[in-house]
């Protein structure tokens, strides 16, 4: 394959070597025209030509060109002298180029045109649509033009008959004006400065022209290659904003060789075969772009700019342009990539949500509206490492988990590693979500705002000079209908069913509930690029939730009429994240890149769900008692880490780094103001390093990534080694086989506190090596993917073995004498296994995907059961379908999710024991752990977005300045059970279903400057 290609290149080299020597020899300069020579004497394409700019500006870019060929055997100068086009005021800003009419037949006449135009228009970025050709040779026919592919070069080719040629009157006719009319929108680069930036919408044309072809970057150099097997380095950016695009794919067309840009957008292509190779650059949500290298292309710091996917191209052009919202990586194992740019196309519940969108992919559970945290392949959200600009985010939920803490306006790129992830990441058992925030527009000030029925969202991107950029985004909920609905769901039991020996209920006395709840988050990023090698950025993130459902009441008489009794119930939860990272990345050399991150992350949660009773007796003495649940969790993480990548060989990249984290995790749990059940403070440091090598073998058909991570944990005073490896084999161009395995340790765990009656809660704890051990897992993954231009099919199987898991339960007394709540931690092990299928249509007006996951997650805790039981997050079948459809300015989408119900434990019965004093005591028994299943979960969401455009209706290209979106969540109002609560009243039990949201419509208005 490669050989064939090189042979072809050599052939081209021979053929057009002569064209290369373009001596830009100025032979004479008359008034305004300039005469030049193309090639050297002896060359078949050696000739003189004349350039003429009526406005005397000879800069080659941003102008329309008219090439003129005279009558048979006429020289360029003769043609120039005779030509009348140059005198037309309409062409004042054009450049006219006169070429000789040599040769006896059309083939000879036009054989040098292509290479000549290429030279003239080198660096020219005004597009095919502004190149015109005037042929004053009546022997040439329309079919000659077609046969010589002149329409591939010029927009219009006019052949003038001798008669018209001499009649200047005819030349001023509208015919030539129309034919050679400048097309301003033909290429973005040629637009008014301001119009360069932003997303545009191109109105679909009624006529069947081939205009959009011009939007593709054209081949401009036809000469031979000068450099072979060299190293090309550069950076990939968004053309509109200057935002670096991390993890974009850069491939050399025709051969397998390729590379990914790093987190800062930098890439290094080692062994580019020739400097005339073609690069294919891809990034989700952007047009797939082909870059034609030329010997003039910089070999270092080469800037590749991608356009955001333009809207509404005609169907024929869409082929090859990926429209997919998410991208399943072909070579990396279990990796999904998403760009927030495309998120608005998916149905949403008030906010575009990255985490929510990942839940539509196979292997990520979608049946938990109450958790933005990801349940990946039978893992829990705490087993998923969430990195935001390098710092760990420990809690990703807003408003009971219905929304994620990440504002999509501030995000640039999100990658999810579902398992078998590389040694670079650590400290978690299941998966990694790596979020990169926007650097901010580096070219122009930008700002925008979104309003939905849930929240308001504003952002501003301000560049200062060309070295500093910043972005600030702020979002706050308001008490709109959606917020109320969610709040009500959580705080009111909407569906009550009593079973067994009857039940009470409905005996609530009137209470005053004052609800004041909100969430907000603030993202900021400040980036400074002192030179082309260094980037320093400061990223700040703060998200806070306050949920208050407190109430108070004072019954008038209770017992004695002279004493007063008042009762207030507090239900206040306040939690949030504060995080910040300072990152310095430096490209030390073409082959060596590194970055160092200093970070701080704090997660806090204060929960006060208590009742305060104040009794004032007849003597005026007041006694106050407080009881309930008082829970406080505070986690601090101070980290430093350095990552380096060194392109050591042409086929291998060495990645290594070191890290250090100091954890300070506190947790207290009290049932009233005097009795604290659990009070733990753990502090420890974790240090370590990793080394891994990304090696490509057998002509890049095999990618092998072995690595090892080693850590030392202060508490246990032990070293932990985590060997890992992944491999992907491209069997054919379309079929790829993948596999991965690895060992993983987790030091900070979110421990579940089992609560059968009111729903389990969880809290963060640091391993102490005893009651909370360091948990570990081993992954085994194998899969295959089959990808065509339009479709992707993939299947992956996984098996994950988990050890040293911890749960906290007050349901058991570890031993009869004395109660030490610290002993109520129980340990177990488990596994999860499954297989995922994905069929995705990547392009076209109608695209989307279908996915199915068959999974099993089992735990084994001696205290609960003798054998394996289904883990809380176990879902057997999960089926998802996502459809996206584009019609003119509308984007329609629909999703449907089906999932098996989750397991739960419930009280199953009761018994009484007579005590020695004659009284009896009631006890309740529960079912076997997770022995029951909630009803299956299913839900359909739909949405439609209408693009808002600036400009007149007739304009061909209009700036997209936002959209109006309407979506319906849970279209057919399915009642999905979230969890069940139980109230035991005088020996009977009242079962209450707490349900997820019913049908919820939402309206979003999103506006932005550019």
């Amino acid at each position, binding site marked *: 394959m490669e050989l064939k290609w090189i042979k072809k290149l050599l052939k081209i080299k021979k053929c057009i070597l002569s064209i290369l020597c373009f001596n830009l020899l100025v032979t004479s300069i008359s008034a305004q025209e300039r005469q030049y020579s193309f090639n050297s004497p002896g060359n078949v394409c050696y000739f003189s030509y004349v350039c003429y700019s009526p406005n005397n500006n000879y800069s080659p870019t941003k102008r329309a060109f008219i090439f003129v060929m005279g009558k048979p055997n006429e020289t360029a100068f003769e043609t120039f002298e005779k030509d009348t086009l140059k005198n037309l005021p309409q062409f004042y800003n054009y450049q006219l180029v006169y070429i000789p009419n040599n040769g006896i037949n059309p083939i000879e006449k036009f054989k040098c045109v292509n290479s000549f135009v290429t030279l003239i228009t080198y660096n020219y970025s005004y597009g095919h649509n502004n190149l015109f050709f005037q042929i004053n040779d009546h022997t040439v026919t329309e079919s000659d033009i077609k046969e010589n592919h002149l329409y591939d070069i010029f927009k219009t080719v006019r052949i003038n008959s001798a008669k018209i040629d001499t009649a200047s009157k005819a030349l001023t006719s509208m015919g030539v004006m129309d034919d050679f009319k400048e097309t301003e929108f033909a290429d973005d680069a040629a637009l008014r400065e301001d119009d360069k930036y932003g997303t545009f919408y191109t109105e679909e044309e009624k006529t069947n022209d081939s205009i959009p072809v011009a939007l593709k970057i054209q081949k401009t150099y036809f000469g031979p290659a000068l450099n072979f097997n060299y190293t090309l380095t550069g950076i990939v950016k968004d053309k509109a904003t200057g935002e670096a695009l991390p993890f974009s794919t850069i491939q050399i067309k025709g051969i397998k060789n390729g590379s990914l840009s790093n987190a800062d957008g930098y890439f290094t292509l080692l062994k580019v075969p020739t400097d005339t190779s073609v690069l294919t650059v891809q990034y989700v949500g952007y047009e797939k772009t082909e870059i034609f290298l030329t010997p003039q292309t910089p070999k270092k710091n080469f800037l590749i700019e991608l356009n955001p996917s333009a809207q509404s191209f005609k169907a024929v052009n869409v082929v090859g342009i990926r429209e997919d919202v998410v991208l399943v990586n072909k070579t990396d194992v279990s990796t999904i990539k998403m760009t927030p740019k495309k998120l608005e196309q998916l149905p949403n519940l008030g906010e575009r949500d990255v985490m929510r969108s990942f839940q539509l992919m196979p292997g990520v559970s979608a049946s938990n509206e109450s958790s933005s945290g990801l349940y990946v392949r039978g893992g829990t959200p705490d087993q998923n490492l969430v990195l935001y600009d390098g710092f760990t985010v420990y809690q990703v939920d807003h408003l009971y988990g219905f929304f994620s803490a990440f504002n999509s306006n501030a995000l640039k790129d999100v990658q999810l590693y579902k398992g078998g992830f590389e040694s670079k990441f650590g400290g978690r058992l299941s998966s990694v979500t790596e979020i990169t925030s926007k650097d901010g527009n580096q070219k122009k000030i930008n700002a925008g705002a979104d309003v939905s029925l849930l929240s308001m969202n504003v952002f501003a991107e301000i560049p200062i000079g060309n070295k500093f950029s910043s972005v600030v985004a702020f979002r706050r909920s308001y008490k709109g209908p959606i917020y109320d609905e969610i709040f009500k769901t959580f705080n009111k039991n909407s569906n009550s069913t009593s079973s067994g020996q009857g039940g009470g209920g409905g005996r609530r006395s009137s209470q005053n509930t004052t609800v004041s709840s909100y969430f907000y988050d603030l993202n900021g990023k400040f980036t400074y690029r002192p030179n082309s090698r260094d980037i320093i950025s400061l990223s700040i993130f703060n998200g806070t939730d306050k949920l208050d459902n407190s109430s108070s009441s004072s019954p008038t008489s209770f017992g004695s009429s002279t004493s007063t009794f008042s009762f207030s119930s507090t239900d206040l939860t306040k939690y949030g994240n504060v995080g910040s990272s300072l990152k310095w990345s430096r490209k030390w050399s073409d082959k060596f890149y590194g970055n160092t991150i200093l970070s701080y992350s704090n997660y806090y949660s204060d929960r006060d769900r208590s009742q305060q009773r104040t009794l004032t007796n007849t003597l005026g003495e007041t006694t106050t008692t407080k009881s309930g649940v008082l829970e406080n969790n505070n986690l601090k993480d101070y980290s430093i880490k350095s990552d380096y990548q060194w392109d050591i060989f042409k086929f291998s990249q060495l990645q290594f780094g070191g890290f250090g984290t100091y954890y300070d995790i506190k947790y207290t749990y009290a049932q009233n103001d005097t009795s604290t059940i659990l009070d733990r403070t753990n502090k420890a440091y974790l240090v370590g390093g990793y080394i891994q090598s990304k090696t490509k073998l057998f002509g890049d058909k095999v990618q092998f990534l072995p690595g090892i991570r080693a850590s030392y944990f202060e508490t246990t005073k032990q070293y932990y080694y985590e060997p890992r490896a992944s491999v992907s084999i491209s069997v054919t161009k379309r079929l790829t086989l993948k596999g991965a395995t690895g060992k993983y340790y987790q030091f900070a765990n979110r421990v579940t506190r089992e609560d059968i009656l*009111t729903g389990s809660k969880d809290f963060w704890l640091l391993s102490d090596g005893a009651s909370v051990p360091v948990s570990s897992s081993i992954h085994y993954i194998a899969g295959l993917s089959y990808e065509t231009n339009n479709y992707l099919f993939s299947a992956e199987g996984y098996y994950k073995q988990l050890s040293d898991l911890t749960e906290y339960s007050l349901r058991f007394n570890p031993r009869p*004498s004395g109660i030490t709540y610290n002993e109520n931690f129980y340990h177990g092990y488990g596994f999860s296994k499954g297989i995922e299928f994905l069929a995705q249509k990547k392009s076209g007006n109608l695209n989307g995907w279908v996915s199915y996951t068959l999974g099993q997650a089992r735990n084994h805790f001696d205290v609960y059961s003798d054998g394996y039981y289904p883990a809380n997050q176990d879902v057997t079948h999960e089926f998802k379908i996502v459809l996206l459809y584009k019609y003119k300015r509308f984007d329609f989408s629909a999703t449907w999710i089906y999932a098996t119900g989750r397991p739960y434990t419930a009280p199953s019965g009761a018994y009484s024991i007579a005590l020695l004093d004659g009284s009896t005591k009631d006890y309740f028994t529960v079912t076997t752990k997770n022995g029951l299943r909630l009803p299956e979960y299913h839900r359909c969401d739909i949405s439609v977005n209408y693009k808002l455009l600036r400009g007149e209706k007739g304009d061909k290209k209009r700036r997209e300045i936002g959209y109006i979106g309407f979506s319906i969540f849970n279209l057919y109002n399915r009642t999905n059970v979230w969890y069940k609560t139980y109230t035991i009243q005088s020996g009977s039990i009242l079962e209450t279903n707490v349900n997820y949201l019913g049908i919820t419509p939402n309206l979003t208005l999103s506006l932005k400057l550019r």
Partner: protein
Amino acid sequence: MRLKIQSFIIIVLFFVTLMSCKKETVEFTDSPVIEAYIEPGNYLRVNITRQIPFSSSVQYSADDINNLQITVAYNNLTHVLTPLGNGQYIDSLSAIAAGTHYDLSFTFNKKQVAAYTYIPTKPLSVTQTTTTIAITKQDSTTPKFTGTPPDPITFTWANPDASYYLIYVENIETGTLIPIRSFKNFTPPANRFRKQPVTLNTQDIRSNEFQYYGRHRIILYHVLPDYATLYDQTNTSSQNLTNPSTSITNGYGIFTGLNADTLYVLVKQP
């Protein structure tokens, strides 16, 4: 290609439909509830009951609760208990003695149910500071009490191993009880009360703990930890559905040994 997707969807939908047909069943394990307080001087008696399920659609095991083959092993002997009906069983072969270990065992619902306990020592060196306490009557007819209340009665005993002791107080007067304080509109309290189990060797009863005048029997129980935890307030809170930690496997309830001493106190008007 389209055909592939379609057939894929059909297959998945088939599975989905298949799954939807599965009915949710209420899970309930029929485990026996044992109640046995083994006290020296008596015969060993065991009461076996069933739990009351919350759902009416549960299946009990076929075992007859009144006709179980229950064995008890002690002093290297194994006895079969005699059913008395109504879930009651008795071992009338020998009386219970302090220091003896008892192992209970039977099969129920295809599972081996087992429990064990031993009889603790009788409380030793028991003392009380007084046998009589004088408390002023307080009600609407008497002037408001302003004096100092009488000293509490202190009980002491030997407790070298910090085991659990529990005091139980009962008014043993017959006929109408004379209350010490007015109960106004409230339901009159019971004629008995108990203290929290302690691992100390002393405990006080304050004058305001007594509700009625007359003779009171004070029973000082030497109990085992599994019984003591039944009284733990936080732990038995239904919030966590904690079941008492006992020696019983594959069953619920209490199977515990105890030993007691009895004392008396007279509550009178000054």
